[in-house]
């Protein structure tokens, strides 16, 4: 109860402003590779990371694939404004990775302080990784978590610190470079990200969080997240991201590969707040073994264009996938989001609960696919999506596909679209709430099923982002 109260109280008190995210730090002294893609760029990245030969080979194979694959052309928002020859694939601040904020250069440290990361780390996280442009500049985890055998580092460091076998076994197996053109691009130039390994039976009381900040104009961020949960373990992983706004296109093409072992449970939460010049072409995929569970909690607020569909492959009996997501498309945004679920084992279950909002000419598309294979006896799926139109300039589409190939399966789908009713506004106004606040209140209520799945400070951040959008303050 007090929790509920606090969430709304916080929303009342804080004066939010876009300045919170939209500030630029100088780039002087940075190592920045030439714009565009070439074998030379790929080899330079690999050389800099001093990585094993198989990784370099994988990068070069992916580059070759990228050069031959077509852009998706017949569906989704246009990415015509994105020209890889104007994007630098690698930008690195001149600093070593630190495990104390005191060792992080002042401007970068200030960036993360303004975003509240060190504070959150002290209060409520088991560990934090912070990436600035192409490299992780800070990484730390509480001692007691490390003692349980949990590994939380970057993929690069995992390769050097004796976990090469594990990385080799899993890296690039769930999201293959052939998956689509931007997956190929990712594998050619990936840099930074997270490697998490949770041993059998270990349950983390506090979340781990990685935060991604893209500071450089005209740059790409290609971090790779690889999480392995051994049987019976539990982890809540949070990723946050933001960037200042530029007049040139920025690109984010990360990859997130999640391996959820038998009876393990992974919650993966994202509050995405890229600036509105960002092309967010991100790929996330989880494979879940018997009795395991993946929970996606996703708030998409930023980016100019997004293609984002976390995918769950349920390969073990009784495994489960839950997706709870909200997308808010404001001015200049075309956000194509949703999820995919593949039920490929008996007694698997999945639920999809999606909300979307469109305002000030924004375009929001909810897109999903649910595939029930012949092996998925007694599979149970429910899909629910609700869209709210906030004005007549905007657009909202709902495109859910279902492919069911097992007669014992049961799939339910419901979708609604509409606007805030006049009756609702009148009721709230008759109690003394001005119209714009009444609208924000209804929208926050609409988003509540998502925000209540997030830890408090992220729920507050999400409410603030909604408030910013409602005020039209995000440019």
């Amino acid at each position, binding site marked *: 109860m007090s929790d509920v109260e606090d969430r709304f109280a916080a929303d009342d008190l804080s004066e939010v402003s876009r300045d919170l995210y939209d500030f630029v730090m100088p780039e002087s002294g940075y190592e920045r590779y030439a714009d565009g893609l070439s074998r030379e760029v790929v080899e330079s990245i690999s050389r800099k990371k001093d990585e094993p030969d198989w990784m370099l080979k994988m990068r070069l194979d992916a580059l070759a694939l990228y050069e031959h694959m077509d852009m998706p052309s017949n*569906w989704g928002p246009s990415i015509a404004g994105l020209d890889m020859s104007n994007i630098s694939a690698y930008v690195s601040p001149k600093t070593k990775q630190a495990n104390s904020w005191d060792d992080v250069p002042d401007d970068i440290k200030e960036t993360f302080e303004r975003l509240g990361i060190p504070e959150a780390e002290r209060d409520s996280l088991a560990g934090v990784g912070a990436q600035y442009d192409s490299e992780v500049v800070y990484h730390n985890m509480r001692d007691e978590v490390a003692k349980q055998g949990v590994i939380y580092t970057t993929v690069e460091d995992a390769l050097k610190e004796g976990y090469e076998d594990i990385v080799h076994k899993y890296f690039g197996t769930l999201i293959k470079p052939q998956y689509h053109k931007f997956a190929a691009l990712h594998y050619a130039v990936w840099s930074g990200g997270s490697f998490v390994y949770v041993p059998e039976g270990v349950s983390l009381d506090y979340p781990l969080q990685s935060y991604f900040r893209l500071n450089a104009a005209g740059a790409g961020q290609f971090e790779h997240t690889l999480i392995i949960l051994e049987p019976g373990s539990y982890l809540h992983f949070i990723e946050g991201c933001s960037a200042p706004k530029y007049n040139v296109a920025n690109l984010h093409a990360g990859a997130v590969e999640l391996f959820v072992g038998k009876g393990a449970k992974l919650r993966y939460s994202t509050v995405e707040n890229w600036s509105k010049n960002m092309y967010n072409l991100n790929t996330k995929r989880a494979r879940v073994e018997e009795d395991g569970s993946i929970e996606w909690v996703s708030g998409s607020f930023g980016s100019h264009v997004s293609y984002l569909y976390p995918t769950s492959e349920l390969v073990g009996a009784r495994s489960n996938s839950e997706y709870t997501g909200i997308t808010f498309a404001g001015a200049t945004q075309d956000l194509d989001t949703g999820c995919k679920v593949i039920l490929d084992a008996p007694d698997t279950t999945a639920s999809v609960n999606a909300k979307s909002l469109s305002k000030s000419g924004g375009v929001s598309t909810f897109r999903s696919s649910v595939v029930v294979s012949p092996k998925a006896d007694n599979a149970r799926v429910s899909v629910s999506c609700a869209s709210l139109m906030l004005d*007549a300039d905007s657009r909202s589409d709902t495109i859910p596909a*279902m492919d069911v190939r097992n007669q014992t399966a049961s799939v339910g789908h*419901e979708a609604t*679209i509409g606007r805030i009713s006049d009756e609702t506004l009148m009721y709230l106004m008759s109690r003394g709430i001005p119209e714009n606040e009444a609208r924000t209140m209804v929208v926050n209520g609409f988003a509540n099923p998502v925000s209540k799945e997030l830890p408090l400070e992220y729920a507050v951040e999400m409410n603030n982002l909604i408030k910013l959008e409602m005020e039209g303050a995000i440019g």
Partner: protein
Amino acid sequence: MEGAARLSGVNELPTPTWNYLHINDVPVSVPTGAASPSYPPAEKIPGGTGPEASAWLSRSADARESVVVTHGQRRERPVELTVGGKDDARIRDTLVTLCDDSEADVVVVARSDRDGDATCGSRLRLDLARGARAHVHVYVAMHDGYQYIDDIGAALADDASLDVHYHLLGAGLTVCGLRTENVGFRAAVDVDVRYLCRGNQTLDMNYNLRLSGRKSTADLNAYGVLFDNARKTLRDTIDLVRGGKGAQGNENETVLLAGDGVVNKSLPVILCDEEDVVGNHGATIGSVSEEQLQYLRARGLDDQAANALFARSVIDSATSQAPTAAARDAALFAARRFLGDDAVDDVLDASGVEGKEEA
């Protein structure tokens, strides 16, 4: 000598989704005949199966008709469009123009006397002026060697209303596309789809209901049963076009899966480019629930009999609603195939239709 051509973009979703799902359209091969393939002209009233299929039907038609129902007239006899039978046309191309406040029934029946390997089809355009009312029935019941393409396009002016009743009761491949454009104020479309699909039959449907008129409405209900290795795709789109203030669209689908090898694809799409609108979608895909089965077992029905009971409801609807003799024959043909010969008399009794089948 007839060659074969592959039509592209048949029953294409208005807004495509992932290609790898192979769900955006349906591959259809048709005989080319003497006509050479050409680019389809833009149509005033487009149909639901897409430009290529529509143009092919138009080019290949062996029966063409234009029916005009004059101002305020209620046409007594339905416009009967029967294809596939011994003395029937193979492909029909029909335009029905309904003037202000007129009303007409249109009955499309696709049937076959014996198994063969022909492609039959109907291209139907409905132009509804202010206050006009059209009632369309489509019956498809053919042998498995046939493929049938049904293409309907309709435009509705102010206060016009259109209801379409589909009974899709089998053919090797049934392609069924409907596109309606509610241009007018308070124009209303009501679509009721019932289908049965068995063996290796494929049923591919594309319904695109566009609401551009103020306070216009569209409702779609689909119910069907899939047996054996039947494959069915239903794309149903409500398109809330900008300018259609106060428009409402509702769609609901129930599919019963009653076969080991069935493939069911559903794409319930809502496109919304207007604020003051309401759109709802519901879909239920699955088998007869264990509870229902238990109840029916307690009444002495085994699971197969239970599934037949649900199929029976589609057949009963087909016979009881059949507006013409040809439609009723098609329904009885399907009754025999899905329920067996013994069931036919029973179905006849239930439908309250007198007499024996016509030859």
